[in-house]
């Protein structure tokens, strides 16, 4: 039987020859990622008398939401987390190397066809390398850490066919926001997504990570790209395990198809307080920006920092605006420094902060006061997410964020960009 990517992963992970959308299965995890939630999950296991996780080689722990610890309470939580890593013999403790999804991907922990559970809604990000990643809450994550398995409904799949060449100044974030604005934030509710078509096939892994990351903002359980030559070239440098192509079977059944011609896109901005409130930048008007934030698992990779650096080079951050740059990982920070971007940011008057989640979920590292406006490269602009419920968060691409940092208000980034294409 011809199967979608979601069906293929779940058939294998549940030990069946085939499954179809609507089936209920008990699926076994290939990887389980836990960030700070690890502390609570592992303490629950201890309380239940469980002394080992289902497979200490398949569990990956990383502390990213509150690093460096902003409060004594968080410092205590981290200390307990490290003790529990030792106690459970977790092989892959990645310390504080950056945002979980970026670090797991750049270190080759996630491979095409894997079923990955994470204690974070943006676990859909792993779809960028052809893996079925999905987020779980504390109780379900505790259950999976103990048993290695959990019930899942096999989701129907929505296929987005991305066509056309990206015009200069348009990034994959613009595509994601356009989809959220045009099709709504429930277009993939309870469903899997496959991003396909010539424009998807041309995208770098970095650009794909942004779209898969935003998949959960469309409601998606998984948000796949086919694992192809680009994926394999990326992963073979990073994983010791064999890496192979992974995609849907020809003739797989889809619930719906949506065509998106990216050649006609303008830069997109999502207005407060929902990622689905996305519009072309020309419809936004003049919105003053107090803080421009370039960070998160959505958009703070080298490719994103390169675009921002190109816009900032030889310019200054607007005196009425704070420009915060939080690289997605320590590796990204190092690579950006070697490429000269760090110096460009500092020359321009930007503030570089420690790699990690930082201001994105409102933990620390750049929260907002009432009445302030932030243009952010992150994934969500829910009311109160980055500090005061009376603040307003707009979402945009790294190019749009960097352009706003220079202009002091939301602006079309293409006016800072002449000539070549940015992606």
């Amino acid at each position: 039987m011809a199967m979608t990517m979601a069906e293929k992963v779940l058939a294998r992970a549940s030990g069946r020859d085939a499954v179809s959308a609507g089936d209920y299965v008990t699926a076994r995890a290939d990887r389980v990622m836990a960030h700070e939630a690890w502390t609570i999950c592992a303490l629950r296991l201890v309380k239940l008398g469980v002394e080992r996780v289902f497979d200490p080689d398949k569990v990956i722990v990383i502390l990213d939401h509150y690093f460096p610890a902003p409060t004594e309470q968080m410092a205590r939580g981290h200390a307990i987390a490290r003790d529990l890593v030792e106690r459970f013999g977790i092989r892959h403790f990645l310390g504080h190397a950056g945002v979980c999804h970026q670090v797991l991907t750049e270190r080759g922990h996630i491979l095409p066809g894997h079923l990955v559970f994470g204690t974070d809604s943006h676990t859909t990000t792993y779809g960028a390398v052809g893996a079925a990643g999905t987020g779980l809450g504390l109780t379900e994550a505790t259950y999976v850490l103990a048993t290695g398995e959990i019930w899942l409904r096999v989701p129907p799949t929505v296929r987005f066919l991305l066509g056309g060449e990206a015009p200069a100044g348009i990034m994959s974030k613009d595509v994601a926001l356009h989809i959220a604005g045009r099709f709504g934030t429930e277009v993939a509710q309870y469903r899997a997504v496959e991003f396909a078509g010539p424009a998807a096939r041309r995208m770098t892994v970095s650009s794909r990570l942004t779209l898969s990351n935003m998949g959960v903002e469309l409601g998606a359980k998984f948000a796949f790209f086919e694992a192809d030559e680009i994926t394999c070239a990326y992963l073979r440098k990073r994983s010791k395990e064999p890496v192979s192509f992974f995609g849907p079977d020809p003739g797989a059944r889809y619930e719906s198809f949506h065509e998106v011609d990216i050649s006609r896109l303008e830069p997109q901005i999502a207005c407060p307080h929902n990622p689905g409130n996305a519009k072309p930048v020309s419809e936004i008007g003049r919105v003053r920006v107090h803080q421009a934030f370039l960070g998160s698992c959505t958009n703070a990779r080298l490719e994103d920092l390169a675009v921002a650096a190109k816009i900032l080079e030889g310019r200054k951050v607007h005196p009425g605006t704070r420009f915060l740059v939080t690289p997605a990982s320590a590796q990204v920070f190092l690579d950006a420094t070697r490429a000269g971007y760090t110096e460009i940011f500092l020359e321009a008057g930007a503030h570089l902060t420690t790699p990690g989640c930082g201001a994105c979920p409102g933990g620390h590292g750049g929260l907002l006061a009432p009445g302030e406006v932030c243009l952010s490269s992150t994934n969500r602009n829910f009311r109160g997410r980055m500090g005061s419920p009376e603040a307003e968060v707009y979402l945009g691409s790294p190019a749009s964020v960097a352009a706003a940092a220079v202009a002091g208000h939301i602006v079309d980034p293409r006016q800072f960009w002449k000539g070549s294409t940015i992606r």
Partner: protein
Amino acid sequence: MQTRIRGRVWKFGDDVDTDVMAPWSTLSAPWEERRGSLLHIRPRFADQVKAGDLIVAGRNWGCGSSREQAPENLQLLGIGAVIAESFGRIYFRNCIAIAFPNLVCPGIAAACQEGDELEVDVGSGKVRNLSRGSELQGEAYTRDMLEIVEKGGLLKVLEARIGAARKAPQ
């Protein structure tokens, strides 16, 4: 765990996200501190609601984060059940995992007003509006989902599974 619940309705709109049910700054706070900021889009909600009250919402209730504190806060507040047009899927799974009845029921937002009295049965999926004498059919839980909720949540299921494994002969 009760799977048939009767209570008075509080109504909410579309796209109410997990961040307003459980703001990040309160995630690790004790319950008394968490309580006040719960659903801050509706001021003083936590003070006005009574144990056993129900929430009726529009589309995509609980979209956003995987934070389990979102449904847990509503459960601790004493909300008997949430009935909505649709749910954010991680939120919905979390509800089953912590045995907090939430039901998908297309048409519910238009079929009741704030203050109506409803009776909801997640086993059959039926929602009866006792104030108006009407009835709607929601999406009943599967047998497995119902079993988790009836046992008191997934941690109880895990506890039983561990107990059974220990008793089994080696």
